[in-house]
C-alpha cells in the first residue's frame, strides 16, 4: 500500500468508529484527539481493525505512533508496504 492508500484505509476505519464526525476537514498534522471525540477504546478499535483487515500487529508500546494521521501513516508505511490494496 502507498501512504495515500494507508491514509484512505485509516479514514475508512475512522468512519466506522466515529460515525458522527465530519472527517472531511481532518488535519493530518494535528492529533486525532484534538479534533475528534476519540477515547482509548477507539484507539484500540484502530488497532483491532488493522489486525482484522490486514493482520498488522501493533504492540502496545507503539500506540503513541497513532496520535495523528501523519504519524499513523508514517508508522504503518513499512508494515503495510507489501500489502496489496484490495
Amino acid at each position, binding site marked *: 500500500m502507498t501512504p495515500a492508500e494507508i491514509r484512505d484505509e485509516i479514514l475508512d476505519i475512522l468512519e466506522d*468508529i*466515529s*460515525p*458522527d464526525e465530519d472527517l472531511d476537514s481532518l488535519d493530518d498534522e494535528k492529533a486525532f484527539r484534538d479534533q475528534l*471525540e476519540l477515547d482509548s477504546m477507539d484507539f*484500540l478499535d484502530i488497532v*483491532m481493525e488493522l*489486525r*482484522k483487515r490486514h493482520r498488522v500487529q501493533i504492540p502496545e508500546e507503539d500506540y503513541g505512533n497513532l496520535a495523528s494521521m501523519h504519524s499513523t501513516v508514517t508508522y504503518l508505511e513499512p508494515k503495510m508496504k507489501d500489502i496489496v490494496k484490495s
Partner: protein
Amino acid sequence: MIAPNRASELPDDQRIVITGVGLTAPNGNDWASFREALLEKRSGVQPYEIRYFGETLAGICDFDTNRYQKKKEVRRGTRAGSVGVYAANEAIRHSGVDWENTDRSRVGIYVGVTEHGNVETENEIYVIKGFDYDTSCWSHHHNPRTVANNPAGEIALNMGVTGPHYTIGAACAAGNAGIIQGAQMLRLHECDLAIAGGTSESIHTFGIFASFNSQNALATHDDPAKASRPFDVDRNGIVVAEGGCLYTLERLSDAKARNAEIHGELVGYAMNTDATDFVLPNPERQAQCVQMALEKAGLQPNQIDLVSTHATGTSSGDFQECKALRTVFGDCTNTRINNTKSYIGHAMGAAGSLELAGNLLSFKDGVIHPTINVDQLDPDCAIPGLVLNEPEEGKKVDYVLNNSFGMLGINSVVIIGRV
C-alpha cells in the same frame, strides 16, 4: 373515587406512583400508539431470520435509535442498551420532570432483564470464526457490552445519572421485578426518582430460538400475526420479541409537589419462587404470589377489574397459569382477564412492564383489549372473565393486576390502582 386499598393508608412519601411511561414494542414506539395498536388488534410479529437458526418469527421493534443516542453510542453499546436509553428518555420526557434541573445523583435506574450477554458473545464467536478462532480478534468492547448491568449502565451514561444503576436478572418476571425494585428504593429514600421496568434484546441471539425450538416451545404459523396464540387449543409455543418499557416512578408527595400527572399507583406487589422445576411452572405458587399481592394491597380478588396474564402460548404454561387464576378469581364476576403477548410475542425481560403499560390506559378509556388469535378456546384455559378476540368497552377499571413469571420458578405480580 376508587375502593380503598392498603397503600392509601400510607403517608404520601411511602406511596409510589407512575408519572411517566416510555416504551418501544413491536407494534408501537410510544404509550399511545402501543395502546392504539392493541385496541385495533394490530400484531407486531413478523417473519425473521437469524444466523444458524434460519427463518422464524419474532416481535421486532422499529424505534429510532438515534433519537437519543449518537451513532457512536449505538455502535459501541448493545441493543438492550439502545432499547433502554430510548425507553428511559421517553419515560422522563413523558413525566414532565424538569430534567435539566433534576439532581441526577438522586435518580435510580432499575432495569429488569431475562438474560444479557448472549447476543454479544455469539457475535464475537461468529467474528473470530472468520479468523480461525484467533482470540486476539475478540473485541475489547465485549466486557462492557456483556457485564450484567449493561442496559442500565448505558442509560446512566446517556442521561448523566450518577445515582444507583443496575439490572435485575429475573427471567421473564423481570419487568415487574424492575418496577418493584424501583418502588422499594423510593420507599427507602435511596433515590428520589426511579427509572424502572424491563428491556429485552433477546431476538438477536440465535440461542434463545434454538433452545425454545429444542424444547418444542417455539411458535410456528403460516401467518406471523397468528403465531402467538395463548389460550387457543392450537397454540404451539412462544414468539420471541424484543422491546422495553421503563416507568418514571416517584413518591406521591414529590409527584403532588410538582403537580405531575399520575398514571397509576403501585398498591400491591409480590414475588415468590416455585422451587419445583427449571422450566415448568407451579400453579400453586403462582396463586400464592397473586394472593400475597392482593393481601399487600388490602384488596379482594373481585375488586381486581383486569388481570393481565403472563401466558406465553406454550401448551403447559398457559394451562398452569389459568389453573392458578381459577384458584384466586374463579368466583369473580367483576374481574376481566386478557393477554398482550398474543399481539407482540414474548418480550422476555420487558414483558411484564410492557404488558402492564398496554393495560394501564384502560383506567382512562374503559376498554379491555382482548386476547387475540383465540379461534378455539382450550377448555383447560376456559376461566371466567376472559376477554377474547373483541375488546370489551365501557368497563370501569380501577385496579389492574399484572402477572409475570419466569424460568427457575420466579413469579412476580404487581397491582396498579387508578389515581
